[in-house]
């Protein structure tokens, strides 16, 4: 779908632009990741609202996570999460073996050090989506071999 190309390009340009500005300006790399994550948070909140307007109420936390893995991921990234693991105590690991935002970058270990920059927005996206479904969480990502990556969601009990 043509929209995907636009979003992919916009996303890589956002990452590049923010990091470029950071080099010329303050030079604080950590800030860029935070900025990207907070952008993703805001977008995730808005998106999940529009998406779940007409769906049925979710039964429990696991139901919500399955929704994120299947419907949400399919709409945003055109595929489902490949593997969802949980310890049933608030920690979920979502594994995507061919993450759309990384497929164009490399197919292995090349450019591995740059991968986290491209995952920050998506971490925020997941966190924002969960937040508007009533779940407070911390989302981190790790990538060991592109384009596969894992998102770890830690639910915070209020």
């Amino acid at each position, binding site marked *: *779908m*043509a*929209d*995907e*190309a*636009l*979003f992919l*390009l*916009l*996303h890589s*340009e*956002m990452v*590049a*632009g*923010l990091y470029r*500005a950071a080099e010329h300006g303050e030079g604080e790399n950590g800030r860029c990741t935070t*900025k990207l994550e*907070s*952008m*993703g948070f*805001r*977008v995730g909140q*808005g*998106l999940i609202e*529009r*998406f779940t307007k007409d769906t049925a109420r979710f039964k429990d936390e696991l139901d919500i996570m399955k929704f994120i893995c299947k419907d949400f991921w*399919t*709409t*945003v990234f055109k595929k489902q999460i490949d593997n969802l693991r949980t310890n049933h105590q608030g920690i979920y690991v979502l594994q995507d073996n061919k993450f759309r935002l990384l497929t164009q970058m490399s197919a292995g270990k090349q450019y591995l050090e740059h991968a986290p920059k491209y995952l920050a*927005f998506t971490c925020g996206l997941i966190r924002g989506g969960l937040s508007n479904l009533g779940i407070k969480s911390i989302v981190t990502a790790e990538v060991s071999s592109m384009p596969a990556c894992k998102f770890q969601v830690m639910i915070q009990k209020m």
Partner: protein
Amino acid sequence: MSRSPGRKQENHKISRELFVLTYGALVAQLCKDYEKDEDVNACLDRMGYSIGIRLIDDFLARSAVKKCRSYSETADMIAQVAFKMYLGVTPSVSCSSATGNEFSLILDKNPLVDFVEELPAERASLCYCNLLCGVIRGALEMVHLAAEVSFLQDRLKGDAVTEIGITFLRKPEDRKHRR
């Protein structure tokens, strides 16, 4: 799991909303980072340019259009094929100069501002959709057409419609003589 056709339409819409929301978050972040509107506009234009030089490949691959023979064909192509493909709207094209190298695209529906009500008071001269100008400029440059693209009218600033002006910088006759 069967999906009704209505659901597919919704998903299609939501994909587009992802882009619109992301763009909004980007503009908001740039407004936080830069104090002056001109800086934000310049930044958006630059980002648009980088996107445009890559988007043109995607466009040509998807649309497989033939070579445009005149500036007005190019402007029509941008409005009727490119805009339709990426944003789902078709602006109307009008030629605004006797020399035939100035065109304007008039958008009565701009999907990028779907969720924007109005510009905040302290950001009165912000060109919210300046990314589009950069994209068009970058894409045209990659097909060897130098152009200046800017917003002539903007609905967010109170004008009736949103109008993008494209000025091609070299006449087609010049290119022929260069052979």
